[in-house]
Each structure stands twice: as C-alpha cells, then as structure tokens.
C-alpha cells in the first residue's frame, strides 16, 4: 500500500465549517472529561437540593405548633391553630407540666391588663407572646413586590450560577487555548484554518457547553419548584429565569472571547492565572455586588446596564419588578455591542499571539501585530 491510495478530493472549508469543526471537538473532548461531568452533576444536585431543602424548611416552619398548658378558660385560644392546648387544673399543675417539658409554656390567669400570665422554663416564648399580643393594623403605602429574604436568595442564586459557570468555562476555554500553544499543535491548526475560525470555534463550543449547563440547571430549578409545590414562587421567578438565560448566552460569549484572548498571551498552563486575573475580576465584582448590595436600587440599576454584571443585575431587577419592559432590551443591546467590539479586538490579540511562545506577550504588541 502506498500513499497514492489515499484520496485527495478536498475542498476548502468555509469559515463557518472550520469553526463548527473546532466547536464540535471542544464539546466532544469536554463531555469526555470526568472532571467536567462530575462538577456539572454536583452543581445540578446542589440546585435541586436547595430547592428541596427550601420546601422542607418552608413546610416545617409554617406547620410548627406550640404546645401550651392552659389554666382557666381556653375557648378563645383553641381558635389559634398553631397552639396545641393541654387543659391544666391549677397553676401548680401547669408549672409541673412546664418543668417536665410536656408543654413549652403555660397560660395562667394574671393580674396585668391582659389578665393572663405566661409561665416558661428559661426564656420568654417570643412566638407565643406575639400570638397573644394585640397588634395595630398596618397599611403599607409602597409595598415591596417580593419578600426581601427571598429576594436576597434569588439574587444570590443568579450570582452563584453566573459566577460558577463563567469561571468554570472561562478557565476551561483558557486552558484549551494554552493547551494548543503549549503542545504546539496550534502551528498545524493555523496552517489549516485561520486563527479567527479557531477562536470562533472555541468560543462557540464552550458557550454551547456553558449554555447547556445553565439550561439544565434552570430546567431542574423549574421542575423542582413545581414538584415541591412551590409554583407560586415559580410564577414570580419564571420571567427572570428566562431573561437570565438570554443574558447569560450573550454575556458568556463576551467573557469567553476575553478569556481566550488573555490566555493566548501565555504559553504555559501555570501562567494562565496571571493573565486571566483581570477577567476573573470582571466576573467576581458583580458577584460580590449582588451579595452585598442586592437591595440597593442604584447599584442594581447600574449593574443591570454594565455588560459584565447585566446577566445578574437585570434578571434581579425583573424579579423585583423595578425594571421597565424596555430596560432588558436596551441592556441586551449594550451587551451585544460590547461583545462585537471585544470579539474584534480579542481575535486580533489571539491571532497575533498564538505563534509567540515562551515569554508572555504584551497586549499592545499583540494588538500591533
């Protein structure tokens, strides 16, 4: 057998065909990596677990009853559903029940204006006191659309998912760029396809992976909420989850291009950290902002328009109901425009740095070519 037997009917790939081939390899290689599969499964389980835990704690908190002993007339108290009442013959008997731990507190006749006294073991039973207190009626003039504790968790959720996915796949794409440089295979690749097609394929491949993971998590979250009977929460959260997915898709392309261009500047895996740190900051700052300033309107509004934090900020504002209908669209336009600019500069840096192995390439040199 000779080489003459091999076939030679080749035709030039288009840019798109080359990019698809590269993207296809990125996806296949990643899906084969055990580390990737395991980390995805863990992230998914964490989301499901938090929803299930939320449903369990939510249920136990609302159904918790307080056992009390009552001396005297208990008719008025039986209407309070969260009280489990034990009738006691005398104050002494009630005290014994409290001391034995059979009940958490006892309600006995008292001398004060309320006419009752509460006996408890070592601390005042706050919940019971509140139940028995008369509170004035409150009318809120500007009620918050969402429960604030929940809003914090939702913001944290968006923040964590975006942060995790961006760092996970950002690091992945950086490693894959440096792998090609450090193994020198990049020179063969560049003799076959253009550097831009290579970059496009990498960004597309990793975006598909990241996006797939996010859709999976979003789907798990929605199914989880429905199955555990928290549909009400879903109604509030649904639109913001959908917007989150949309913003994530665009925002991730932006980050992926940044990670790839930054990584192209170095030739060894151990140097990745030094060049991707600034990009990592762009991912971390929005995360910390949402953790510390989730209830600050001004911060959230700014966040929802800055391209790097919009994927967290805008869905959060949609959830809180503080965004007008056109705001996500405008923010999306800003993020798209930024992505185009970054991809243009990024691909230039990428193309000019790929063959420079050894010392770290300076950004300005890479832009000049």
């Amino acid at each position, binding site marked *: 057998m000779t080489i003459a037997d091999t*076939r030679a009917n080749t035709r030039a790939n288009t840019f798109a065909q080359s990019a698809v*081939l590269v993207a296809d390899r990125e996806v296949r290689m990643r899906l084969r990596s055990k580390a990737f599969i395991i980390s995805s499964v863990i992230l998914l389980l964490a989301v499901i677990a938090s929803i299930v835990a939320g449903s369990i704690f939510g249920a136990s908190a609302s159904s918790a009853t307080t056992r009390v002993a009552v001396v005297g007339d208990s008719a008025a108290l039986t209407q309070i559903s969260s009280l489990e009442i034990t009738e006691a013959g005398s104050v002494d008997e009630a005290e014994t029940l409290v001391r034995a731990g059979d009940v958490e507190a006892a309600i006995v006749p008292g001398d004060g204006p309320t006419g009752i006294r509460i006996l408890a073991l070592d601390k005042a039973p706050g919940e019971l006191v509140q139940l028995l207190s008369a509170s004035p009626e409150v009318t809120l003039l500007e009620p918050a659309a969402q429960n604030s504790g929940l809003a914090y968790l939702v913001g944290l959720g968006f923040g964590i998912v975006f942060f995790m996915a961006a760092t996970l796949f950002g690091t992945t794409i950086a490693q894959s760029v440096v792998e090609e440089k450090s193994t020198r295979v990049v020179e063969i690749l560049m*003799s*076959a396809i253009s550097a831009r097609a290579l970059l496009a394929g990498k960004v597309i491949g990793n975006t598909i992976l990241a996006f797939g993971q996010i859709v999976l998590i979003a789907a798990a979250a929605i199914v989880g909420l429905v199955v555990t009977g928290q549909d009400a929460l879903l109604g509030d959260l649904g639109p913001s989850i959908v917007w989150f997915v949309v913003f994530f898709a665009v925002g991730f392309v932006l980050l992926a291009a940044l990670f790839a261009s930054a990584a192209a500047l170095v030739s060894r895996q151990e140097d990745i950290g030094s060049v991707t740190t600034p990009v990592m900051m762009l991912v971390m700052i929005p995360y910390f902002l949402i953790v510390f300033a989730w209830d600050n309107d001004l911060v959230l509004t700014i966040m929802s328009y800055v391209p790097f934090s919009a994927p967290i900020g805008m869905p959060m504002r949609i959830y809180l109901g503080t965004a007008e209908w056109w705001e996500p669209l405008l923010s999306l336009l800003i993020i798209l425009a930024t992505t185009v600019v970054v991809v243009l500069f990024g691909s230039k840096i990428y193309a000019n740095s790929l063959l420079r192995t050894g010392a770290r390439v300076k950004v300005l040199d890479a832009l000049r070519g």
Partner: protein
Amino acid sequence: MLQIDGVTKRYGDRTALDAVSFAVGDGRLTGFVGGNGAGKTTTMRIILGVLSADSGVVRLGGSALGPDDRRRFGYMPEERGLYAKMKVAEQLVYLARLHGVSRRDAEANTTDLLERLELAERRDDTVESLSLGNQQRAQIAAALVHSPEVLILDEPFSGLDPMAVETVLGVLHDVAKQGAPVLFSSHQLDVVERLCDDVVVIANGQIRASGSKQQLHDDNAVRQFELLVASDAAWVREMPGVAVLDFDGGYALFEADDDEAAQGVLRRALQQGPVASFAPRHRSLTEIFKEVVK
C-alpha cells in the same frame, strides 16, 4: 513547482530573512540546510502562511499562494505537537477534516497511513501514551493525512531511530514520486546528502547555494586526490604542480594544479611499485556546507 521569491522578514531591526529566493521542483526531495537561527523555520512558516513576510511572494505553479491553497500543504513544524489527550486516529481525522477532507475520506486516509507507518494497533491510544518515536510517526501522519500536494517538513528526522528514518523516508519518496514538491530541513547533513535530489543552503537569512546535489558538488569541487601505495610516498612532495595536504607513510592527500599534474603523480607511483588506490576525493556535504556558509 514551489517558488520562494525575494522573501524578506524583519523582527525590529534584525533581518531574519534577506530576499530569500529558491525553488522546490515537482517530485524533488529538496533538503534545506543551515545552522541554528539561519532562517529555516521562519522560511517554512512563511511558506505555510502561519507567518507573513514583509515583502516577497511564495508561488505554487506560477501563481501566488492564498489561504485556500495552503490547505493542500502538509506541514510538520519544528516544534512538534499534537493534542496530547486525543486518540491518534481521532486526531488525524480531525486534522484532515480541518483541511477540508470529507469525513469518509479522512477516515480512510487515517487507516491507510497508520498502517503504512506501523501505528495501526495504536490508533485508539492517546498521543501522550505513545513512545517518543511513535509520537514522531503520528506527527508525520498528521502532515500527510489530508493527501497534501506539497510537503514542508521541519527537521522530520530528528528524534527518529534508524528504523523509523527508513519508514519515513519511504513515505517521503512515495509522496515525491506522485510529483509533489517536498522541502525538508535537517541538521543531519549526511542524511540530506544521502536522500536529497536538491539542496538549498541558508546562512544568516541569506541563500548561499541552491540547486541539485550534483550541481553543488561540481560547483564546489576541488582538485584533490588520494593516493595509497605500498611503499613510502614522501616523493609526492617533490612533484611539480602538487601540494600535499596530508601525508602518512604510504598515504598522501594532495591538491593538483591541473589533471596533468595529478596523472604525473599516478605515473610516478606506478613506476615506484604497486598502487593500492588512486582517486579524486569527493568532499562531503558537511565540508561544502562549512565553506559555503563562511
């Protein structure tokens, strides 16, 4: 025919290539020799288009090369490299497809090549698990898997054991036999001398010699002769028109002003006694190279 025409490349104020021109004929194995930093790798990268020249042009069959033509090139970079964690066959199919080969042909080519290079049973092993020699074979397969019409190989024999050199050589001859121009660089001048049809010598970014191997030898021929006789050969020094370069008992290496002076030495030697050998001395490529690059 692949023509490199007036290619110049500068890095800052350093001129890496200075108006480099030479040609690689169809079906000719052309050796590209030069010291470290002479400009071999830069030239090859410019031919492949992974590096752009400041001026000058590379032509194939008379027309300037564009990006679309370069996918017909097979390239083995000096810096070896394949995806370490990818399987050999899978990787070759991928590289062939990047060059525009259909999936079916890419798979058929891969199978053929792996068999030819005696790598068939390692096709599903990752590249990093191969021995160094087998990695080199895989690298050569990567340069050939898309049935290239031109081959550019940077130091293809470095790191190969003698058996592998023969295998690779067979493959290169096959490719050349189909009419492909084959350019390869090497430090091993003895290998180049044995294998090549043509030789190009580069030093300090300038082409010092290029042409057929025979031509190179003829151009740099010297009138040197070696004589081996049974008795002492000291008398050679007294011969007219002759300068002795080396002398040891019955052996003498001398340079003659013309053929007549050399024949005179032979006649005298025969008169003196039996002559074991008398021959013009061919200089090795190494010697010529040293002189040419000076």
